[in-house]
């Protein structure tokens, strides 16, 4: 016990010495012109007599518009119309570029035009291949996403509630967050012998990381006065969890699910890069490699629309369940 204390004292003495040394080092290493410039600036500020600075001019020209334009009363159809104009604009730019692209760089570049892509879309629907690819991808996304939901919610709650759990998971979560899924695809594929498990795992990992971080923040954000209030009414820890922590973290869970769907969609191509002949991700990758841009673009558009659909479903659920917000 005594040893422990003396060790502690020694350590604190050592750390204060290090700090002192660092301050001296900083002072010595700061170039003279920096300190001089700082001093000069300080003196200039001190020389200003604030009471003698003249009043601001009431200049209509520089004081901006009288009123901010208010779009809060915009009807839904107007918003949809403007959105449609935006989509048409982007398609227009794409279309024009598809025509002029032939001449860029002396005819070696090209881009499929919207009608070509649409033709492929119709063709793929008619021969049923699109439905087949889509079905594989939907299955993978949903399985990966649902496993991630089931695992990330308890992990995030435990991380927020118990420090040891946080200490245990945090390095892993922070490390993996920085690594693009594309980087570990070969490893996962090898480890799972290229089966369906590999796809589920890659999607699960991406969704799990996104959702865990978001839900964790949500639980940490719980208003402590609500916790105090619940305690004063005689709530026990389990009541507190069900009655206060879960409902107040609930909006974050829904936001995390929406972010998770995004993560699942963006990792789909990586997950289906190898070990399969089916799935939208495989399709996009494969057609891209074969330079079939028409099929490739079509795949990307279907993938994007599918993502929007999932997001909208979650948005409706969110609106319904958190009407108190």
């Amino acid at each position, binding site marked *: 016990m005594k040893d422990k204390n003396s060790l502690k004292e020694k350590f604190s003495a050592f750390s204060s010495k290090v700090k002192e040394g660092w301050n001296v080092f900083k002072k010595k290493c700061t170039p003279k012109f920096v300190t001089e410039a700082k001093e000069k600036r300080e003196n200039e500020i001190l020389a200003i007599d604030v009471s003698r600075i003249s009043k601001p001019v009431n200049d209509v020209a520089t004081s901006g518009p009288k009123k901010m334009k208010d779009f809060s009363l915009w009807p839904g159809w107007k918003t949809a119309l403007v959105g449609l104009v935006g989509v048409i604009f982007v398609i227009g730019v794409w279309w024009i570029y598809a025509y002029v692209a032939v001449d860029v760089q002396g005819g070696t570049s090209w881009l499929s035009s919207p009608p070509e892509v649409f033709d492929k879309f119709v063709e793929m629907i008619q021969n049923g291949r699109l439905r087949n690819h889509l079905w594989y991808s939907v299955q993978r996304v949903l399985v990966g996403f649902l496993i991630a939901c089931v695992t990330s919610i308890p992990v995030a709650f435990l991380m927020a509630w118990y420090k040891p759990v946080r200490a245990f998971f945090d390095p892993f979560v922070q490390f993996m967050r920085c690594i693009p899924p594309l980087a570990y695809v070969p490893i996962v594929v090898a480890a799972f012998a290229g089966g369906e498990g590999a796809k589920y795992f890659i999607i699960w990992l991406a969704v799990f990381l996104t959702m865990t971080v978001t839900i964790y923040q949500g639980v940490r954000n719980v208003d402590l006065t609500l916790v105090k209030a619940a305690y004063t009414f005689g709530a026990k820890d389990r009541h507190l969890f069900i009655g*206060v922590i879960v409902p107040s973290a609930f909006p974050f869970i829904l936001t995390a699910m929406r972010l998770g769907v995004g993560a699942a969609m963006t990792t789909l191509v990586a997950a289906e890069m190898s070990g399969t002949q089916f799935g939208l991700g495989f399709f996009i990758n494969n057609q891209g490699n074969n330079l079939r841009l028409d099929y490739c673009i079509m795949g990307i558009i279907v993938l994007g629309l599918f993502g929007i659909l999932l997001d909208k479903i979650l948005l409706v659920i969110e609106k319904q369940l958190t009407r108190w917000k």
Partner: protein
Amino acid sequence: MSNEGKVVIKIDNVKKIYPVENGDDVVALNGVNLEIKENEFICVVGPSGCGKTTLLNIIGGLEQPTSGSATIHGRPILGPGPDRGIIFQQYALFPWSTVKKNVMYGTKFIRHEVPVMKKNKETGEMEQVYTTDENGNTVPLMKKVKYTKLEREAIARKYINMVQLGGFENKYPKELSGGMKQRVAIARGYALNSDVLLLDEPFGALDAQTRSQLQEDLLRTWEKERKTCFFITHDVDECVLLASRVIIMSARPGQVKEIVDIDLPYPRTQATKLEPKFQEYRNHIWDVVYKMYVDSAKH
């Protein structure tokens, strides 16, 4: 009046020190002694940072004193309990619950005693069961049960009507104004039916108009039920208007500077503020508080 009555809460030489890493520890309370008697309305005033809220948290059981003791009815306060309701400045309403559900939450975990009933096999009617106590007297056998949902709803309805929020039962907190939210919080505190009500600057965030209104409402309710109140404020007028006893606390480290018995008869209204006696109390307390403020500003 305030010198009689049973002591409900006793604060005995309570110290609270918050340890600060790499610095001087903050002494929030430095030896506070206080006795709160039954049916008293105590107001605590003092400059900000004098440990008023810390004292309330200790009575409420949300914090433990570093040394000294806090007791309620002679029992040490070990944690929060339904014998002490707390009303917070930030309302602390659950945003996901309606007004009714919020008020009902106050009665969710508490239990009360009801007589044990048994079916008489011959007549087929429900009868009370009796037992003998340690003195040999026949007394009804009682059991502790939680309130039924209907009872809780009835209690909630009573107190929602008391704070004049009838018709707003199914609204969410976001749909209410600040004053209405605080009324809901007060109703929730009352629904607990605790011996003591602890109020932590409940009207601090409200505009002057709403505050006067709620002060009167609180006075009416208190005059009716005479619940022991421990009310924290930084508003000198408010403390004289409401309190039967005012505790003036000094700035850090927090200590009881002076105790003033307010000898103004209840019922009081906003018009009480015009009485010369009110002015006297007000000026006196203001002098003490302001002097402390000036002293602390000098340092």
